[in-house]
């Protein structure tokens, strides 16, 4: 096997793993550290992807958007748009029973999918948005060099996200989140407004999902509604649960492992299943993810890397 295509594939694989890791880190902030159950991951990812695509893309006569802004502004716009959507959903659902958030986020993802599919003048409808600018593409061309460059970009974003989240969850703010997750009444009795902290955690997490969506859009170059089906939500959940929620290392490792399982199983099924049965093979692949989520929940609820029992860095070694 020639080296260049192999390297190119590895870079491609790692770019996706890195993008998924950013999304999984966002979900970890919500579920792992604050106990918020978000079933609308795909919706918030879609908002980010479409926002960045519309902000940075070339003008299209038939469609809204195409402002040709710099890509970095597109990414910031993606985070803002997903954050605003999360704020609206959060205000409606977060003050209620915890499973109502699950139902509401499920609903918002359905609605976003509908809008993506039907609001032709904004989202391009079923055909999606094409010719999303790819950073350094003119400079490097479509080969290995570009894949590696984008990998570097994704790795930088991932590292920044990681660093910011580690700082956040180790801060007093992060401790309050975990306190609310464990015992809301106790946290409230110490004067912490649970609703406000929950909302902050939810909005920040969704902003990361939006960023992940933008990273995806500018790597692939075009987006369509079928890129943001509920299966994406399941994949991110599987990553977090396999890796271990409440631990950023778990979220990133889970992203890598589940994406590897997904890619390998997809390749195997394509080999094994005859051409006419490919759609059925794809269904079987999704069954695998569903069973994986359920099996890990039963057999190893903490995932591969469970949460570290840590109060604060000042109290290390004293908490027994």
């Amino acid at each position, binding site marked *: 096997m020639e080296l260049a295509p192999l390297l190119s594939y590895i870079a491609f694989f790692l770019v996706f793993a890195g993008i998924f890791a950013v999304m999984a880190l966002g979900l970890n902030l919500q579920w792992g550290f604050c106990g918020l159950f978000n079933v609308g991951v795909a919706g918030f990812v879609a908002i980010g992807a479409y926002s960045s695509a519309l902000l940075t893309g070339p003008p299209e006569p038939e469609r809204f958007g195409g402002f040709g802004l710099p890509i970095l502004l597109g990414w910031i716009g993606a985070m803002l748009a997903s954050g605003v959507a999360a704020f609206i959903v959060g205000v*409606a659902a977060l003050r209620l029973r915890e499973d*109502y958030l699950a*139902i509401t986020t499920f*609903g918002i993802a359905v609605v976003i999918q509908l809008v993506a*599919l039907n609001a032709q003048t904004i989202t391009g409808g079923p055909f999606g948005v094409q010719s999303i600018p790819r950073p350094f593409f003119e400079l490097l061309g479509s080969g290995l060099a570009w894949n590696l460059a984008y990998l570097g970009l994704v790795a930088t974003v991932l590292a920044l996200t990681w660093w910011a989240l580690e700082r956040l969850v180790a801060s007093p703010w992060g401790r309050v989140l975990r306190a609310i997750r464990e015992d809301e009444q106790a946290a409230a009795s110490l004067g912490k407004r649970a609703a406000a902290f929950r909302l902050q955690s939810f909005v920040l997490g969704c902003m990361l999902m939006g960023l992940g969506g933008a990273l995806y859009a500018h790597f692939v170059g075009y987006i369509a509604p079928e890129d943001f089906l509920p299966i994406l939500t399941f994949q991110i959940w599987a990553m977090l649960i396999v890796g271990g929620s409440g631990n950023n290392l778990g979220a990133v490792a889970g992203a890598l492992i589940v994406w590897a399982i997904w890619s390998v199983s997809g390749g195997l099924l394509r080999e094994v299943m005859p051409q006419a049965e490919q759609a*059925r093979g794809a*269904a*079987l692949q999704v069954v695998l993810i*569903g069973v994986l989520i359920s099996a890990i929940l039963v057999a190893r609820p903490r995932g591969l890397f469970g949460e570290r029992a840590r109060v604060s860095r000042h109290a290390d070694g004293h908490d027994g």
Partner: protein
Amino acid sequence: MLQLVADGLIVGSVIALGAVGLTLTYSILRFANFGQGEFMTWGAYLAVSALTFVLAMTGGGVMQPIEPFSFGWQLLVALIIAAVLTALLALLLDWLLFRRLRHGNAITLVIASFGAALALRNLLQFFYGTLPEYYSREIQISLRLVPRDVMGGLRITPDQLLVIALTGVVVVGLHLLLTRTTLGRAMRATAMNPALARVAGVDVDAVVRATWVIGAMLAAVAGVFAGIVGQIRPMLGFDLLLPLFAAAILGGVGSVWGAVLGGFIVGLAESFSVPIFGAEYRAATAFLVLIAILLLRPTGLFGEKR
């Protein structure tokens, strides 16, 4: 106008039946079961297979419709078989998965139901493929109940009328079960306070099993009804999940009549949204209803304060 009401009632029947099952499992098993929609889909598809089987057993393999309906008695037998099989599926799922998670965090159960729903839906797609199926290919002439010059008129097929009527029968039957039998009282007691119910001698494990059976059977019936008035597709239940939740929460979690009313309200809201927002956004209506109820009255119409 009248036609929109009728369309809303037909869709509402299916939503109502599914939502009643959802509200029961929600209040007694204490978690939002995202698998309820998949029980509907499985019920609908199991009835397809059961129908083929029944027709093969009764010779000929051809269904002779009972006038004025598009299907014969064999479909009703298939419906019962499908409901029993769906109940067994729910029990199997509980034994494999939910039973082991019941003593942990309630949200873990929701995640598990999410994973299970995903697996169930795609398993179905693997077995049956993605092409739509029908119980009967008979073409039905719709009855004109109201002439066109009275409020836009009203046309409805006998099948659709039967679905609305049978929904009423099933719900009344369930109401009698819950209010007049020992099992029903035990179920309501468990919904209110499981610990107290156990102390009072209620076999909570049996109640849990009964709840799964009833919830899954209602889902299967709803799924078959959805198949009678429409197509049987792998996404049938998934697409109904949001209306189901909206209806159950609108009615107040735990309230059977609330879920029925909620189901019809969501069904009517969906059909009335079509001339306003267009058919393509029909599915978003349930979400608007859900957001409105969460903002205005999160306990639902008949819910108790928690």
